[in-house]
């Protein structure tokens, strides 16, 4: 008899999702699907609003990565105004995004994923969380929490609040960094460097030993990668151009502008998920599978451009023997990116421009169609607005990072399920591994369906005729 195992919801991710694992007659996994079960409709209710409100509205999509939406929206607004923003604004926006990447990656690594590594895949689910981590390793937990606090506080120092700071606006930013804020960042940077160094050492050691096997099982397959790079081909998070590379490190497409995204990104729809399936158009669906986010950014760039992060990047490439293609290495990539962000923050905080009050350009409605792009913690984020001559939104399209990893997440779930699940007896720890395949991508489903919340895990064993054979609740 064929069976379906449903993991609903997936825990320790941002948003609502479930996983279905389909078993064949022999009890072997035939397929697995990652369903995103939320629907939000942001694109619809933005219609009719002034484009100047869009940063504020779209930031509300998410409480974890509002900065990404603030930036993509403000950049789209810059284009509607047809202004080049002041250098101070460019640097200040970059600072906020670096802080955002730091805090979000710290959340993903320390709060959400590290309990699996440090407490064990099969440990008690009741304590396999950040609180269990605090009990088992209080110093590490404290350091991780403080690293996230560092990123959040930099955001607050810039934009007056940690979440949904209405600070990035079309034309620039509202205010520069204060001298007090600058000093606070300088004072806290050394501790943040120490934490990321500690985490890198710990994780690299585990990759050598306890987690060695996971690299080959958790989403190890070739795909394309997409991310922004700067004019020198270096790691980029805010501006620059788009590049696609393959799993051998070959550049598939380069110098792409976000304005033309519809020519190289297609969006497929499947009836079983609210999350669309973007693909690289020249290769069609589903062959055009590509990954975005921390690992993609590191794979796509020639180098990062800062000393310590470049050394770590080389170590990662050496470990993989070329281009790292395992989704499990997203965790590693996240730590390297935190290091890169801290190094780049160090450079920016010493730049006198970030204290300049000339940080907002003014303009009217000069373009009626504009696309903005930025690198969110989870990958490349596009905002596309069409406005009328008075600047009222006629149409919105948001292409979210998590969506672009949708094909890869499905493939990862299937790979893990096929490796671990054989027969009707499914220990909880194995299902946790399946969930962890999703956590590699740190998906933000609230964003990608343009909801939030978390419920206890609910598993169902469903027979082919729909009969529920077994049910487990956490």
């Amino acid at each position, binding site marked *: 008899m064929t069976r379906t195992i449903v993991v609903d919801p997936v825990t320790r991710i941002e948003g609502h999702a479930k996983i279905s694992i389909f078993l064949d007659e022999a009890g072997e996994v035939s397929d697995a699907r990652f369903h995103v079960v939320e629907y939000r409709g942001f694109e619809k209710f933005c219609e*009719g*609003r*002034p484009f*100047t*409100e869009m*940063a*504020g*509205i779209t930031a*509300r999509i998410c409480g974890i990565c509002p900065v990404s939406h603030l930036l993509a929206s403000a950049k789209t607004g810059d284009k509607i105004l047809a202004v080049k923003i002041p250098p101070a604004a460019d640097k200040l926006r970059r600072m906020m995004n670096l802080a955002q990447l730091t805090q979000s990656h710290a959340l993903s690594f320390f709060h959400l994923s590290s309990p699996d590594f440090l407490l064990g895949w099969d440990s008690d689910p009741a304590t396999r969380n950040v609180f269990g981590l605090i009990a088992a390793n209080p110093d590490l937990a404290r350091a991780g929490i403080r690293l996230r606090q560092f990123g959040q506080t930099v955001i607050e120092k810039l934009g007056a609040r940690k979440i*949904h700071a*209405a600070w990035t*606006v*079309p034309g620039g930013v*509202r205010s520069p960094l204060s001298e007090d804020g600058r000093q606070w960042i300088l004072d806290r940077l050394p501790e943040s460097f120490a934490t990321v160094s500690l985490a890198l050492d710990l994780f690299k050691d585990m990759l050598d030993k306890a987690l060695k096997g996971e690299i080959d099982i958790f989403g190890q397959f070739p795909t394309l990668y997409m991310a922004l790079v700067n004019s020198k081909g270096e790691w980029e998070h805010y501006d620059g151009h788009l590049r696609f590379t393959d799993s051998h490190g070959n550049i598939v497409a380069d110098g792409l502008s976000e304005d033309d995204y519809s020519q190289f990104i297609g969006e497929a729809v499947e009836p079983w998920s609210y999350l669309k399936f973007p693909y690289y158009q020249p290769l069609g669906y589903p062959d055009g599978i590509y990954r975005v986010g921390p690992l993609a950014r590191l794979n796509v760039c020639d180098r990062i451009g800062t000393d310590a992060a470049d050394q770590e990047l080389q170590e990662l490439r050496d470990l993989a023997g070329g281009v790292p293609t395992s989704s499990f290495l997203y965790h590693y990539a996240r730590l390297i990116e935190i290091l890169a962000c801290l190094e780049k923050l160090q450079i920016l905080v010493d730049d006198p421009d970030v204290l300049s009050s000339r940080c907002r350009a*003014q303009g009217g409605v000069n373009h009626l169609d504009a696309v903005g792009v930025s690198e969110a913690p989870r990958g490349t984020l596009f905002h596309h607005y069409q406005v009328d001559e*008075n*600047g*009222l939104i006629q149409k919105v399209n948001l292409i979210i990072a998590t969506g672009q990893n949708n094909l890869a997440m499905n493939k990862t779930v299937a790979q893990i399920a096929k490796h671990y699940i054989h027969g009707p007896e499914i220990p909880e720890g194995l299902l946790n591994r399946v969930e962890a395949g999703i956590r590699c991508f740190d998906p933000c489903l609230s964003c990608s369906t343009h909801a939030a919340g978390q419920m206890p895990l609910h598993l169902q064993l469903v027979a082919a005729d729909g009969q529920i054979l077994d049910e487990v609740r956490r």
Partner: protein
Amino acid sequence: MSVNTLKIDGQDIAVEEGATILQAAREAKIPIPTLCYLEGVSPAAACRMCLVEVKGSPKLLPACHTAALEGMEVSTNTPKLQSFRRMNMELLFAEGNHVCAVCVANGNCELQDLAIRVGMDHSRFAYRFPDRKVDMSHPQFGIDHNRCILCTRCVRVCDEIEGAHVWDVAQRGEHCFIVSGMNQPWGKVDACTSCGKCVDACPTGAIFRKGSTIGEKERDREKLSFLVTAREKQQWTR
């Protein structure tokens, strides 16, 4: 000049003849919440937030529009009034589309302040989510009818202070809305002098300067009464 004496919340008060209950209360530093009332222009009694109880009157009376008469006994803050004001505020919120989080007036909004003051933490009434428009046709200003509470301050400042009479109220009942000119786009109304008094007068984020983002709306409301004093008394002091 004759003087009337009355009791407000048990306090003996003497005011000039012709003063309203609201003016008498403010002189005595007794707070009465207001929303549509604006110093310098005529009262409209549109918002009903300043309703008070007057002994001997079977109904609640708007303090902004009721003369303070000799021997009156007025109560401004009874449980009945508190409950009424909160309900009134809930109805105001349920009627329009008020989303503070993304509003230009967030943090600087009389509707928001008053909701907090009367203790409104939710609305017991179902939100109507009306389909209302935003008019951004004026080169400097915009009007978002979603945020309009029909206080008519804009109508009164434009007519009584600026003398342009750009604004009016159209339709009846739940269909009421503020119109510019002959229900034209604001940018097409020749009478508008782009003085910005309506922006200063608006208690919410309904009328704002273009380009303003969340919480950026600033007002200079005292300018309105300054202009009136300057014109009527030839005194240019603030």
